[in-house]
């Protein structure tokens, strides 16, 4: 058995668990200065003037700058405008010179010999503000009389986007026996990576080059958009390095104002400059996720078959656009609204809306959790309305396993088709783990004793392994580049292998899984393979890690580079063995003549010969060094069913998760332990949305949940033990048959938990409660709708 599919221990872990790994804040260099940023206390205000003299005079201060000092730099680019529609883009500058549209925007910076001095000096800067009216709710922001944030965006609408067929969906809803209409809110979340963001930049005046260290999930992309779009210099003049990155969840994909600022400062003051975000800054200035207000209409026949789904969503963008914000609630949301179901007609209408709140962009799952939440709540409403079992409604509408590749209705997936699936199989496996019948009996008995148990189901699909460049690119879905991935493999003279990848690891375990792919392909020990990443110097260009794409796109680039190594090795072996290349096979790390195992050369022998070059076939270049740029022909579509069982305390409204079952199908699995870890972490974040987390702005645009004292990221003690299992339906999209596992847990778990609580509250007649399902909300719902028993 090969090393592929084995739970080998993560090679990254020893340095992480012993504290040896070097994170951004561990970087020290001679003469390094420290930056602190003055941030807007207002959610919407004009800057009338800024006086910096007193701050500049403080001993230890190197310089104080405002937005006016950086007007030669362009605003940050928006790299993903919603596809096919007019977008009214507004993006931040490194410091805002005139006006702010959310609290926490930077308006001045102090550079000092140490951070303490820089912070002391911030207090001496005087800003004359002219506060403007504020709107924080995306629906209200589009109404008449709402404060206007940007001149180019009437009614604060960044764009109006749609997919599907409005007329056909209207007709489908009319033909239904039952139509359920409900407004639901997918609340704003704060990603809360354990490591906040940071940046160190050093400018080399002799070479006119920058070296930048940043907490970046996509260092190549960050370099490209910083140089070409903001500074107007060749990308070859900058090197970007991501040191060890302590969690990203999407929020570290983007180019942020502070990075541009620190890079510009390094040249201005001629010293290395460091800025490391505090948690308080992290909460106001790093992107948030979700924040949808959605009106859902779903229609079904008496037998439970869905006739149509109409969705209208106000997607909050925040006060200004983050790097890929408009693409998330459009392409990655609306296009996924068929989920695992065969829905005849779908129409989705989205308004991306500016409000005086922090920037919103992709957060683990990015659009797909929001779509799944809409659909999985709606399936339960249908079951309720028809008096059917929620499992039956799901089963009734699943896309049958013999209908793949499946193209969702009304071209909502814009030409793509689901690759493979067997949705009944994951559902049945999950139900077997649950013992559904027993549970319903236990639930009925418990209710008689005033104990409220509930079960929630969530069947889902994900679109991951993003994405075919031609599909997601500018002419189609609006993404401002490609989305292929790259890898290079070099086999050195001693047979040791170095893999470089354009992909970026910030917790996913690339150094382990990509080594497994190469070791398996080449038939060599995993320990002979090292994987290098996260430095634009020495790795091929790549688009970075997000969208569960590192395995299904980056991993395939690695696989194909290894194939090329094998091909060249075979040609060289043919020369060494004086055989025909057609007669050779590559097996167990050796090239051998078919049927004559004794006539063989090991890959190490071939690598040596290739490296020294003493005797090569005519025209062959020395060295085993191969690169692949892999553009996937389709995305991949993992799926599964999650089941949650809860008990709701009638006295306090507090929810306790009693069991959590997750059956996922992520295609073939490279390292089961790493996939389990991804699933566990994903479920934790999804449960967090259902029960605990919610970013709250008050009417003045102040972030009320502005610290970890208020914003409830759950600890291990607040989460259940997970019962996980898998089915395996390989993806036909790529040669490894892998799909992706980074976001499935987050996508599936939120509705499973909410559905379970609603099931528990059925005796009280409660139809819906918006998340997070805090004890008070649940307790109130129990009182308002049904009264306490």
């Amino acid at each position, binding site marked *: 058995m090969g090393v592929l599919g084995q739970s080998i221990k993560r090679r990254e872990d020893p340095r992480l668990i012993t504290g040896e790994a070097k994170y951004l804040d561990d970087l020290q260099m001679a003469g390094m200065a420290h930056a*602190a940023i003055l941030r807007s206390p207002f959610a919407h205000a004009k800057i009338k003037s800024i006086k910096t003299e007193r701050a500049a005079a403080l001993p230890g201060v190197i310089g104080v700058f405002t937005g006016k000092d950086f007007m030669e730099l362009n605003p940050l680019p928006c790299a993903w405008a919603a596809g096919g529609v007019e977008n009214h883009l507004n993006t931040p500058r490194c410091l805002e010179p005139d006006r702010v549209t959310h609290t926490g925007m930077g308006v001045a910076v102090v550079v000092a010999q140490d951070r303490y001095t820089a912070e*002391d000096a911030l*207090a001496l800067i005087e800003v004359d503000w002219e506060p403007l009216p504020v709107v924080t709710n995306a629906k209200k922001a589009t109404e008449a009389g709402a404060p206007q944030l940007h001149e180019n965006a009437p009614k604060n609408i960044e764009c109006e986007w749609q997919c599907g067929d409005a007329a056909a969906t209207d007709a489908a809803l009319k033909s239904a026996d039952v139509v359920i209409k409900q407004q639901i809110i997918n609340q704003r979340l704060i990603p809360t990576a354990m490591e906040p963001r940071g940046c160190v930049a050093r400018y080399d005046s002799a070479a006119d080059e920058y070296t930048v260290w940043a907490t970046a999930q996509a260092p190549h992309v960050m370099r490209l958009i910083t140089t070409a779009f903001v500074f107007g210099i060749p990308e070859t003049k900058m090197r970007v390095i991501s040191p060890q990155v302590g969690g990203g969840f999407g929020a570290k994909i983007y180019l942020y104002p502070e990075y541009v600022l620190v890079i510009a400062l390094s040249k201005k003051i001629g010293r290395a400059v460091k800025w490391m975000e505090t948690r308080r800054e992290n909460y106001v200035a790093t992107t948030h996720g979700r924040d949808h207000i959605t009106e859902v209409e779903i229609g079904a026949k008496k037998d439970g078959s869905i006739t149509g789904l109409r969705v209208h969503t106000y997607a909050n963008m925040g006060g200004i656009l983050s790097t890929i914000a408009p693409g998330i609630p459009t392409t990655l949301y609306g296009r996924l609204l068929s989920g695992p179901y065969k829905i005849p007609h779908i129409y989705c209408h989205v308004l991306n809306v500016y409000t005086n709140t922090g920037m919103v962009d992709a957060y683990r799952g990015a659009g797909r959790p929001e779509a799944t939440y809409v659909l999985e709540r709606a399936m339960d409403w249908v079951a309720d309305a028809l008096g059917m079992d929620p499992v039956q409604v799901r089963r009734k509408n699943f896309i049958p396993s013999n209908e793949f590749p499946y193209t969702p209705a009304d071209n909502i997936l814009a030409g793509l088709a689901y690759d493979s699936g067997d949705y009944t199989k994951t559902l049945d496996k999950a139900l077997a783990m649950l013992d559904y019948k027993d549970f319903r009996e236990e639930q009925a008995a418990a209710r008689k004793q005033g104990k409220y148990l509930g079960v929630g189901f969530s069947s889902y699909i994900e679109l991951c392994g993003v994405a075919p460049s031609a599909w997601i690119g500018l002419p189609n879905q609006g993404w401002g580049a490609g989305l292929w991935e790259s890898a290079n493999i070099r086999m050195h003279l001693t047979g040791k292998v170095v893999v470089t990848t354009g992909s970026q690891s910030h917790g996913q375990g690339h150094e382990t899984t990509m080594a497994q792919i190469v070791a398996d392909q080449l038939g060599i020990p995993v320990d002979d393979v090292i994987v290098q990443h996260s430095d634009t110097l020495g790795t091929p260009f790549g688009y970075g890690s997000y969208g569960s794409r590192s395995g299904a796109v980056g991993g395939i680039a690695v696989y194909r580079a290894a194939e090329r190594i094998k091909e060249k090795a075979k040609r060289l072996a043919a020369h060494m063995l004086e055989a025909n290349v057609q007669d050779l096979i590559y097996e167990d790390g050796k090239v051998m003549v078919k049927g004559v195992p004794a006539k063989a050369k090991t890959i190490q022998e071939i690598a040596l010969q290739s490296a020294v070059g003493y005797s090569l076939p005519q025209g062959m270049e020395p060295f085993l060094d191969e690169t692949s740029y892999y553009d996937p022909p389709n995305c991949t579509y993992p799926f599964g069913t999650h089941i949650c069982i809860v008990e709701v305390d009638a006295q306090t409204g507090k929810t306790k998760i009693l069991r959590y079952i997750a059956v996922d199908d992520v295609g073939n699995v490279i390292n089961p332990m790493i996939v389990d870890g991804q699933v566990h972490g994903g479920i934790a974040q999804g449960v967090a949305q259902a029960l605990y987390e919610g970013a709250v702005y008050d009417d003045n645009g102040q972030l009320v949940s502005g610290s970890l004292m208020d914003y409830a990221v*759950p600890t291990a003690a607040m989460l259940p033990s997970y019962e996980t299992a898998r089915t395996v339906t390989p993806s036909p999209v790529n040669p490894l048959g892998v799909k992706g596992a980074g976001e499935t847990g987050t996508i599936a778990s939120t509705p499973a938990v909410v559905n379970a609580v609603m099931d528990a509250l059925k005796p009280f007649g409660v139809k819906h409660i918006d998340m997070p399902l805090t*004890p*008070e909300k649940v307790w109130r719902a129990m009182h308002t709708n049904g009264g306490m028993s």
Partner: protein
Amino acid sequence: MYPAPFEYYAPKSVGEALSLLSQNADAKILAGGHSLLPLMKLRLAQPAALIDIGKITDLYGISDMGNTISLGALTTHHDVEHSGVLRRECPLLPEVASHIGDRQVRNRGTLGGSLAHADPAADYPAAMLALGAHIEVQGTGGKRSISADDLFTGLLQTSLNVNELIVSVRVPKTNAKGQSVAYAKFPHPASRYAIAGVAVWVKLENDQVSDVRVGVTGAADHAQRAKKTEDALKGKALNNDAIAAAAKLAADGLKTLGDVYASADYRAHLVNTLTAQALSAAQARAHGM
């Protein structure tokens, strides 16, 4: 996370600490630092000087005084939680301490610091009220003893004078037959502070409640006793009906606070619910259940 500049002193005696306190306007006493330092890091507190009392050996230790137990002001929550004498003779305190924050907080945070800070959602105040504890304080003018009932006066306010320092806390032994204690808490999911917390001490004679104290924290701007509940129980048998009837009065007259997580109404409901839970737990313990 970068405090403003401050002077730092580390006196070796209470007298030295008190004279530093009187010499430095706008100075703050630093004990475990688990409330003060976070505020300073956010620059919400910017004291001109910190007087670190950690080197004053007199302020440490848990002592059996006969009828009472004395705890030095610098006793950590961890030491309260794990003290053998407290677990035997005054089990309410270890129980309450085990609910405070997390392990890191309990290792550093101190009893005296918590009481002096008087966070409205801290756990100890409820226990102090239920136990009828006495807070021993020392100032430049001498020593005095403050009853727990008189200590908490408002939001982050105590009856300590400006230049006074908590030296120790004296709690009664509650292990005699017929006495029982319990603590019920509803923590905030992020901060672990009490949305509401109720500590009870009950004394039973001939199966009737001869005395009872109920301390409520978290719900109002400062910890207070639920005197209506206490009065309703006195002279009654401690049974389920009596508990249910008395617990309904716990929030009566209490000015509960509301925030994003829990409204004032819900807090009042929790106070009543937790009072019933704590009394039931005390009842079960009293009857050896």
